[in-house]
């Protein structure tokens, strides 16, 4: 599948599994889960960068992994202004052209604010950012963000951390149908089969954090997700057979109509 590279913001990725880095018990487990997943792009919350204390800085172990694309996210920002400032600081600290734009002002369900997210994207794209906005699974908002010049859209499968899978399946389908930029499902996935389903539908990638970090064995789960994403992508490329409500008969019953004389049509 090496000819199936995922191009995003001027970079190419052979892995379509992106990882969030919060919630792990320690950086050793995080690094091993990352290795198991084969992920080449990870997101790190700016609030977990700690310039004063390397032992508490989530970036330190990540920067030791060669070739890893580290994408700062703006989680903790409550509005567009805070997110823009966070993006600027994140770029300064990581040199990454990417920013995962997260504005979820309600700390309890962490659902993204579409209005502030749109406004922040409108300001970040002209500043040269490859903007990856985390959004509600809204097909109209998705097109609006595409029109602004976002590098991809990241609709949620379900609220962060809930593990409810692709609860927004029907909306994701609508987003995929019209999107000219990559669609990356983010948040809510629980099982590798959720990730496989997203990939079979035609999503370009998935981003997973809780489902791996909160698994009993995060490293094994990372490998399982990598395999599922690979299988889902391969299935999408192979083309799923059409679904039908009826069995298709191997001995058709209507062929006589083709040969019958006297047909007027």
């Amino acid at each position, binding site marked *: 599948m090496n000819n199936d590279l995922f191009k995003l913001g001027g970079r190419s990725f052979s892995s379509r599994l992106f990882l969030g880095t919060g919630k792990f018990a320690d950086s050793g487990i995080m690094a091993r889960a990352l290795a198991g997943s084969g992920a080449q792009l990870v997101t790190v919350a700016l609030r977990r960068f700690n310039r004063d204390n390397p032992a508490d800085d989530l970036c330190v172990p990540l920067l030791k992994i060669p070739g890893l694309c580290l994408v700062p996210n703006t989680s903790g920002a*409550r509005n567009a202004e805070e997110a823009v400032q966070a993006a600027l*600081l994140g770029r300064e600290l990581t040199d990454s052209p990417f920013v995962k734009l997260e504005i979820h002002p309600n700390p309890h369900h962490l659902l993204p604010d579409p209005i502030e997210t749109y406004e922040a994207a409108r300001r970040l794209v002209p500043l040269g950012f490859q903007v990856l906005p985390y959004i509600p699974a809204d097909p109209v908002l998705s097109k609006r963000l595409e029109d602004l010049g976002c590098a991809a859209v990241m609709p949620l499968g379900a609220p962060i951390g809930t593990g409810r899978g692709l609860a927004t399946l029907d909306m994701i389908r609508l987003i995929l149908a019209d999107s000219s930029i990559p669609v990356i499902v983010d948040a809510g996935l629980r099982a590798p089969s959720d990730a496989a389903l997203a990939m079979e539908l035609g999503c370009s990638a998935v981003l997973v954090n809780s489902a791996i970090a909160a698994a009993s064995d995060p490293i094994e789960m990372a490998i399982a997700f990598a395999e599922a994403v690979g299988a889902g992508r391969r299935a999408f490329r192979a083309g799923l057979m059409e679904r039908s409500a009826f069995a298709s008969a191997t001995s058709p019953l209507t062929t006589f109509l083709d040969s019958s004389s006297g047909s007027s049509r």
Partner: protein
Amino acid sequence: MTHSTPTPSPESDLWPDDLNPFPLRSRIPHLSARNVQEALAAETPDETHLAALLSPAAQPFLETIAHLAQRLTLRHFGRTIALYVPLYLSDICSGGCVYCGFAADRPRPRHALSLDEVESELLAIKTLGFEEILLLTGERAPQANVDYLDAAIQKASLHFHRVTLEVFPMDTLEYHRLANAGCTGVSLYQETYQRSDYAVLHRWGPKRDYEARLDAPSRALDAGIRSVGLGVLWGLADPLTDALALYRHVRRLQRRFWQSEITLAFPRIRPQAGDFQPPFPIDERFLAQIIWAFRICLPTVSMSLSTRESPVFRDGMAGVGINKMSIASRTTVGGYQTPHPANEGQFIIHDDRDLPTFCRALKNKGLEPIFKNWESLYRTVSA
């Protein structure tokens, strides 16, 4: 035992309509195992489920309840424990809280840190590695007023990403000023929501004003403070009534301030100068049940446990309901720069482990201690 205490009469207190836990409180002794099972299976638990999980009928289910609480804590907070540290700025207090070691009638020399002393305490704490600090005082005093807090917060916010306050209630303009100074959160525990008990426990001073205290979290959030911490001081009054009222207070604020964080702490009355004996003592088993019931019914709310509790209890609760903890705490004024102050603290600390020892205990449980979990940049942007 707390569960056997008689149900208080709803008529004995005038409740704000939306906080009144009656008649639900009166039903708790009659709830059954079936009610508990329903609570454990609820998709979106509400206050009736909280009541069931707090009830005597839930005691045989405590192991199952603990497992569910752990799963929810893991889901929403990961394998992490956020750490913070308190700094008492002043023990000068005009208050008459019968349960507090700082009450005005306790004979003790009083002291408020000078701003230079604040700075050296902050630096000593910063050296330990903390990124979140909780500043505390007694009641409003000339030596510890809003001007003083403003200056102390400005100093603290140069060193710490998160600066929170546990002081006296203020008006909206004062909170606004402190938000601009860099204050990110305010903890204000009602201690008890039961008015008649509240009046007896708070013998004199500004804290006698139940309403002023109850509405202070709303004023703080109105003023731009990002998070408020609520709580009950367990042991002061009927815990079941207070638990339900506390839940209602959280839900009231969550609905009104949907962009703000509402957090909970679970302080239990500890031995202190004055030797107040709590009328409703709560044992560890029941405290754990309360915390887990709240975790199940408010799964996304940050819940902290202080060094009031024992090392064994804290280690057991870490990641099982509790996602945030203080450590290396001093409850004396200052005490980080000068390790052995002469005075007694506000209460006696039970978990006196140092930071490295505590972090090792967390890691042994598969939990990562986190110091920085917020970004001070957000504070400056919106100030």
